């Protein structure tokens, strides 16, 4: 009941519109700092009265739109006003550049989710293996690393929380596929770039694998894994604003190799002990501090048949020690500025004994980085930063018989700075322009690399995008240690992409052309002499990738098909002429199928992969890399069964079709008595890989288990 004193009442009425002249219902229209206001009706009209007078601010707001503000002076007369709300530039509406990039995360533009990467059959929870079912990747079955669009394995660089990671693959014997050292369980977001990536990242000639670790874990849990190749125990302690997670694992392939015959004469099958620790802490209202540490020790030993005319088995022993430490911090500095900074350190020591000769290699590196983000205006976002990357590497070789010693070493320091602007020209068009400037102390040069990408919305669910950029990577360690002043290898990328995404179906087609320059080549006759090395190599890679994914059409079924056509040649390393490298094939094709069967409480998956013949060099012929292996084909399957809400049973098997895949041929270094070089095929040591495991999760909430990771 109001006190009966007459006060002037002003009525404010009107209609709320959007820019397309449709009315908006449910918008909040009110006088700032008061309770007076109302909600617009179904027809967009509103009307309310107020006793406030003089200067007021009329505010209009609705989700997804910028706030409307209008200053006015009320003097008791009624006010009629038309309000137009402007859609905000961020959110559902903006176009996100998809050229050259597959993003898996909780964002809206993702093509793959982290779960997808980990549940792919045949991948046995290895990131590289799972990504190998995407277009643009080349199946190199005996290697296990990522080879992207005609590029060598070293051309893909891995980043965790923005920090460079060296030596990201496990120790393994020759022609035995390796695995990524980092388990996909750690990551909440993955961005796999097949080219044209942001100016923030450098030192990846072909592609960047950008991984983001999980945020603070809120639940406390313990996980135990019993697998046919080892054991793992992990514990996560969650508090309100922080979490600490630790994992310890021990793997030994001896029992497995005793059951399933392998074609390698192991004297000590691979064993690995590894552990990691991850700490997260929320800082203030918007900040996050993350720290991650990993260590591992691996060893293996086997008798190698050197395949020469006078065969005497060589005993090979490999030992690897690895440590990686990473700390990062991100926060809002103000409502328009953000900061992301981090530092990482990697240490790797490898000891190789070839009979009694010994080789010891050390790799050490630091990476320090700071990136500032600035929302310059509603449509323009700036990103700029600087980093320092150091790399020191040495190799010591001792020949036991003669006592001959040799040492190669280098210490490289790269300083770089980058700036990039993301410009939403409209809701249909976004452009990203940027560049990187790098200084390399071994080359004593400053270089500048521009990057540009754009996306244009062509329809409600489709977009066209393109990317162009210069990329450079300093020489791989095994070459740089012999010739420290080698220039960086360079590649120019041109990418054009069309993508259609609706509900849970995606279609993508992407055409690319990579132009390689300054590739390192050396004379194979004198490989350990500086003078043999130069940057005179070059090459090209071009092709088209197609991708279709459908998680919508069939209930509980998710599948994707990817195909890539690649045409590439290069002259690099010890190639006498320009030719297609052995790690490429003209056609790459994958089908991945997953289905959740409710009645059986299981998820089953199949992956079929095909790659056309790979080049290899037959010394009995004249043409370098002129011959082709038979095609590669593999059908793998996996099954995850929820025995109870806390126990999962897992089984995976590769090469169900029992095909003997040949990856290349190895030839004798000298011809036999008939003048013919004898050759033998390079195959996997066993026709298939079986993995069986039981995963147990203990936590207060019974609905938590390891299913998302399998």
């Amino acid at each position: 009941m109001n006190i009966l004193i007459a006060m002037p009442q002003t009525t404010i009425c009107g209609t709320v519109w959007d820019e397309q002249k449709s009315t908006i219902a449910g918008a909040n229209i009110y006088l700032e700092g008061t309770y007076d206001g109302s909600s617009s009706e179904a027809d967009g009209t509103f009307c309310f009265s107020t006793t406030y007078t003089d200067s007021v601010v009329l505010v209009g707001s609705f989700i997804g739109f910028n706030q409307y503000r209008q200053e006015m002076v009320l003097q008791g007369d009624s006010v009629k006003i038309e309000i137009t709300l402007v859609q905000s530039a961020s959110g559902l509406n903006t176009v996100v550049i998809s050229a050259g990039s597959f993003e898996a995360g909780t964002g809206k533009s993702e093509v793959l989710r982290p779960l997808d990467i980990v549940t792919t059959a045949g991948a046995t929870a290895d990131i590289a293996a799972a990504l190998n079912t995407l277009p643009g990747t080349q199946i190199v079955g005996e290697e296990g690393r990522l080879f992207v669009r005609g590029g060598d394995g070293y051309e893909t660089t891995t980043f965790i929380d923005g920090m460079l990671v060296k030596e990201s693959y496990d120790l393994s014997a020759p022609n035995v596929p390796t695995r990524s050292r980092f388990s996909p369980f750690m990551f909440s977001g993955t961005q796999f770039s097949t080219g044209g990536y942001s100016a923030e990242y450098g030192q990846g000639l072909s592609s960047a694998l950008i991984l983001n670790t999980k945020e603070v874990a809120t639940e406390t849990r313990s996980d135990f894994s019993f697998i046919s190749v080892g054991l793992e125990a992990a514990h996560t302690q969650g508090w309100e604003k922080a979490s600490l997670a630790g994992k310890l694992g021990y793997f030994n392939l001896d029992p497995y190799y005793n059951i399933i015959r392998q074609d390698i004469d192991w004297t000590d099958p691979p064993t690995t002990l590894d552990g990691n620790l991850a700490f997260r802490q929320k800082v203030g209202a918007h900040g996050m501090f993350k720290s991650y540490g990993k260590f591992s020790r691996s060893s293996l030993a086997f008798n190698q048949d050197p395949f020469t005319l006078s065969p005497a088995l060589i005993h090979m022993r490999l030992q690897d020690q690895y440590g990686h430490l990473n700390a990062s911090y991100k926060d809002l500095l103000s409502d328009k500025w953000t900061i992301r900074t981090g530092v990482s350190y990697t240490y790797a020591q490898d000891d190789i004994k070839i009979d009694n000769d010994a080789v010891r290699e050390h790799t050490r590196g630091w990476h320090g980085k700071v990136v500032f983000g600035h929302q310059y205006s509603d449509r323009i976002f700036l990103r700029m930063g600087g980093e320092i990357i150091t790399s020191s590497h040495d190799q010591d070789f001792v020949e036991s018989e003669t006592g001959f010693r040799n040492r190669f070493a280098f210490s490289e320091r790269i300083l770089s700075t980058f700036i990039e602007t993301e410009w939403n020209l409209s809701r249909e068009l976004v452009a990203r322009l940027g560049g990187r400037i790098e200084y390399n102390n071994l080359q004593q040069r400053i270089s500048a690399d521009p990057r540009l990408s754009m996306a244009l919305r062509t329809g409600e669910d489709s977009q066209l995008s393109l990317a162009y950029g210069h990329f450079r990577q300093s020489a791989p360690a095994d070459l740089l240690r012999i010739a420290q002043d080698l220039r960086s290898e360079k590649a120019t990328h041109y990418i054009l992409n069309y993508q259609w995404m609706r509900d849970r179906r995606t279609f993508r087609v992407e055409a690319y052309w990579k132009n390689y320059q300054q590739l390192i080549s050396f004379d194979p006759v004198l490989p350990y002499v500086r003078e043999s090395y130069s940057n005179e190599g070059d090459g090209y890679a071009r092709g088209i990738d197609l991708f279709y994914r459908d998680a919508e059409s069939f209930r509980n079924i998710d599948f994707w098909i990817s195909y890539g056509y690649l045409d590439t040649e290069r002259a690099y390393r010890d190639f006498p002429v320009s030719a297609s490298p052995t790690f490429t094939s003209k056609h790459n094709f994958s089908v991945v199928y997953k289905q959740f069967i409710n009645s059986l409480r299981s998820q089953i998956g199949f992956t079929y992969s095909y790659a056309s013949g790979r080049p290899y060099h037959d010394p009995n012929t004249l043409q370098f890399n002129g011959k082709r292996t038979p095609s590669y084909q593999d059908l793998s399957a996996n099954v995850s069964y929820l025995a109870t809400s806390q126990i999962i049973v897992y089984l995976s098997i590769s090469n169900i079709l029992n095909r003997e895949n040949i990856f290349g041929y190895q030839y004798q270094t000298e011809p036999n008595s008939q003048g013919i070089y004898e050759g033998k095929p390079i195959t996997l040591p066993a026709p298939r890989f079986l993995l069986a495991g039981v995963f147990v999760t203990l936590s207060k909430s019974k609905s938590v288990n390891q299913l998302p990771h399998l």
Partner: protein
Amino acid sequence: MKNLLFFIGISALAALSFTDPYTQAMMKGKDLLEQAQDQQDFRAASNQFARIAEREHDKWLPAYYAGYAMTMVAAMEATPEAKDEVLDHVQTYLDKIASIEHNECEALALQGFVYMLRISVDPATRGPEYSAMSAASLQKAKSLDENNPRVLHLLAQLSFGSAQFFGSDTSEACQLNDLSLEEFISRAKEVEDESLDPNWGQNMAQAFKAQCEN
């Protein structure tokens, strides 16, 4: 003299029935909420509370109701993207409450409810992660008020969904829901007319009981 007495009388009457603007505005909002049927109604209720919340920086209740009303809007959204967008907005209210009042049972219960709705946007991917987060919020709410009917009902819904998925026994979840209904009824009897405390959820628990009976 007569005028003075009259004036004093009127003022006294006015003073007795005078409710402060804050309570008045909140009661108006609660009325809108009680009568709300569709998204439009819930948006109107949310807007009313949002206006109050903007002014009252040290009170969590207006932001709570603004968030609750928008949660109802989200629950009725047709497309997953729209659901997520509205829930993002609700989360801003919940974050604001958390900065004012850390350990508020009702706010934590609402947070648990929001996490449950997030699951429905993409059950396959979000199921495990968000059920864990929802359970954590609801358990914390329960530790602050053991028999809060909203907390009990939401926990019942969460464990029912989980039990269904794993094919295990749903009776425990249904018993929990019956307990929540008892609490709803007993607390409704004790509440004062002008109370601003949350009292929603009985209809939801009633409707859920029907699911249990099948």
